[in-house]
């Protein structure tokens, strides 16, 4: 049972990690690609971390919760990165796909 849960969590995590990178690879402009890593850093890594927490909690004595910290740190740093990259891209006027909706003003 435990193994099943772990397996599923791991697969979910790996899947979303992959999806993130597929997005990065596939999407047509920088701003769209920017959305890729957020997948990976949230659910992708998150699911795998949960799997790890469960795994080590059961495998060793005592619970293992420090995996939460990775998520916590990522949740603080990843958006800052994304924010700055976006800002930089806008600043140097990186091209957008034509169909991009522009600001209302």
């Amino acid at each position, binding site marked *: 049972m435990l193994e099943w849960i772990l397996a599923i969590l791991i697969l979910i995590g790996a899947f979303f990690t992959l999806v993130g990178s597929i997005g990065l690879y596939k999407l047509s402009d920088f701003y769209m690609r920017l959305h890729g890593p957020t997948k990976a850093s949230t659910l992708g890594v998150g699911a795998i971390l949960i799997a790890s927490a469960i795994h080590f909690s059961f495998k060793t004595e005592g619970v293992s919760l420090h995996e939460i910290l990775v998520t916590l740190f990522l949740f603080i740093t990843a958006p800052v990165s994304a*924010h*700055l990259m976006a800002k930089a891209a806008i600043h140097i*006027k990186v091209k957008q796909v034509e169909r991009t909706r522009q600001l209302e003003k």
Partner: protein
Amino acid sequence: MSLLSFNLPLAAFLPFAAAPIAAWATRYNRLASAWVAGLTTLLTLAILFPSMHAIFAGETIIQQWSWLPDIGFNIAFRLDGLALLFALLILLIGLLIIFYARYYLSAKDSMGRFYAYMLMFMGSMLGIVLSENLLQLVVFWELTSITSFLLISYWQHRQDARQGARMALAITGAGGLALLGGVLLLGHIVGSYELTQVLASGDLIRGHDLYLPTLLLILLGVFTKSAQFPFHFWLPHAMAAPTPVSAYLHSATMVKAGIFLLARFFPALSGTPEWSWLVGTAGMLTLLIGAYVALFKHDLKGLLAYSTLSHLGLITLLFGFGSQMALVAAIFHIINHATFKGSLFMVAGIIDHESGSRDMRKLNGLFKMMPHTAMLAMIAAAAMAGVPLLNGFLSKEMFFEQAISASDTTLAAWTIPALVTLAAIFSVAYSLRFIHDVFFNGEPIDLPKTPHEPPRFMKIPVDILVVLCLIVGVAPMLLIGPILSVAVAASLQAPAPEFSLAIWHGFNLPLMMSFIALVLGVAVYTVRHRLFAWHDRCLHGIEGKAVFDWLQWKTIRFAKKVTDYFDQTTLQPSVSWVIGGALVLSIITFFQFNSPLFGDRTLMEADVITILMALTLIVASLLTAVLHHQRLTSLISIGVVGLVVALGFVKFSAPDLALTQLSVEVVTIVLLLLALFFLPQHTPQERSYIRLSRDGIISISAAVAVFLLTMAVLSREYSSIANFFIENAKPGGGGTNVVNVILVDFRGFDTLGEIVVLALAGLGVFAMLEGLKLAAPAKDVEGLEWSHDPHPPIMQTLTRLLFPLMLMVAVYIFLRGHNLPGGGFIAGLIASVALISQYLANGIDWTNDRLRTDMHRIMWLGLLIASGTGVVSMLLGYPFLTSAFTYLNWPVVGKFEVASAIAFDLGVFLVVVGATVMILVELGKLSHAAHFINVEDIK
């Protein structure tokens, strides 16, 4: 210890000791130095005097002290007949020269310097002739080169003096080095550098494989010093020296040092065809060339110089004949030549001194103005020409005799006497010229001064020498017999042959040769004007100096070419040499052994993910290289390399390394970005395909070599000392993280060095950046204005939030390091990154306001703590850096470990923080001082 047990070294040493006194004495009285020099010479004579009796009794005095026995270099002096003869020549003629020079030198000339040099030279010469140890002899030999350089260049403002001195030193110095080589070989053959043994080993030497090289090297020394062809040309140019120097060095003493060596080594080296041919040929050529050229010299001293060459050739030729009687003649002529040539040089000096010229085309009819001097000159010149009743005649007769007897043994029986006679003809001619051109031959032309007799005392040395010429010429055995006899015996290392120095040997072939020489000599002189014209037309400008200059110029040009080829002050060739050198050396060395390239260790299967990561790493590396023209891109891709390397460390069981690599990676990227701002954003394309292919070949070779090396090791088994660390980390080091225990305990000394490196890097960066002004681009590469938002608020807010968290993690990583992956270094980097993130997000001023700590302080504190823990262990009697740990049990907290290694690690932590922050922040501050310019301006 009586004086007689050390008077020889004392005699050689005394002039050296007196030299500084002479130099110093001149401060008080201009003539004081002359007095010092003269008295020193007399004293030296007096010191040698007590030993003379024994020498005339046929004894040899040896005084030696062990000095460097390992190499056979002893302080060893020897006085025998030969040495005594030369020592007397050196001292007696020296005394006369000292006397003479006191009148010769003008008020402008520094007496102190002159006499100091003279004394040093005298000491060196005495050293040569008194040496028993050959290495010691070489020392004095080279000293004469150095002191003669000083003497020739005495009038240092004159270019000819400087050049002449340099040339003399170059030639005689080279000869000295050759002599050193020869002496070393001689010592090698004989097994000792002591003359006594060398002289006793003639057969051994002559029979040895190394005989010829030894002989050649020693003869090189002899020929250069004694100005034998083809090394003769330095001597005329050395005439730029003051005349007393010429008289002393270049006629009486130094040039005879080579001859002295021929006499010295006669029993050891002579008696072979090689000896005869080499010595004889050089002597004969010098004899002829010197005699011939002397006639054509218009300069008084030039004439005397070439005449000296000729006579040196004569003596050398006599040694080349190799017979015992030839040796007698040679040594006899040495004495005679010293007397008449010394006096002639002094006469030349007097004429120069009194008339201001040495040009025989201007000097005419001086007899009327200086009859006394003229008389002296005539007698001495007659001796030089070999006129009977003078000493020169006697030795020349002996020479002719030897030339005739030597010709018996050769095929072309008549050549030697013929050539010798030819030389004698010219000798007569130039002697005649010296007298007739100067003292008669009409009236003087345009002389700077009106000549008159010199001061009375200036003539006294000449008087003495000329009188000697006469006495020896008339009653040779009286004065010369005994000393010549012992000198010959000493030179032969055997009883001297029977010889008689009679004036009259009856009508014989030598007498006839003398007669022919006299007659034809006068004839040649009478047709001199036609000869001069012919000479100027055909042979003018052919000179050894030109060859020497050409050779020297070629050598220097070659040197410059070679040096410039290697030392181009360019980096890439230097690096290529290093890498190429390492490759070539290691490849050659590897193939000298019969080792297979690879071993037979079982290798590990590769898994998909590792292959993938390896590919990533490979491509990223290639990308870094290929894209290096776009620097930012290249930097990003090197970031990938660092990340994957860290992942690799994780994969292969090195969590500590992974942590370190990750943190260093981050800091490195920030560092390089900080610097990149001030550098061009693109590297220009290189168009030289030659260079690209050269670099390509080197890089690929290096890569392949490293691949093979890695595989060669990894495919082999090994056993290491690792087990000790694993077994002792916990019980001995108090930690379970073996890597950390190695770092802070087993090999803490490495770590101490490492943090010193880091601290020095920080200080070095600090020092380099001080006052550094750089241009910073006002726009980016695309020409875009920079963003106006230096500190995006969202970044600001969140990095501040992150700050305490990072510090917390740093503490965590620090504290666990001893037992689990982590430690002071990684923690230090995390703390640094935490600080740097503040600098990045909030700016330098803002952060500095809050930090309020000079990183210097952090660094020394860290270094102090780290080394302090080591010192504490010393205070407790343990070796430096011995660690200690214990377990404490506190209420509530429970049991925990306290280890001195933690303190050490704290030092590491502080240094890392201090250095890293200092480096990055100092670099960041650079933009404060930068002036902003447009990109176009940089291009």
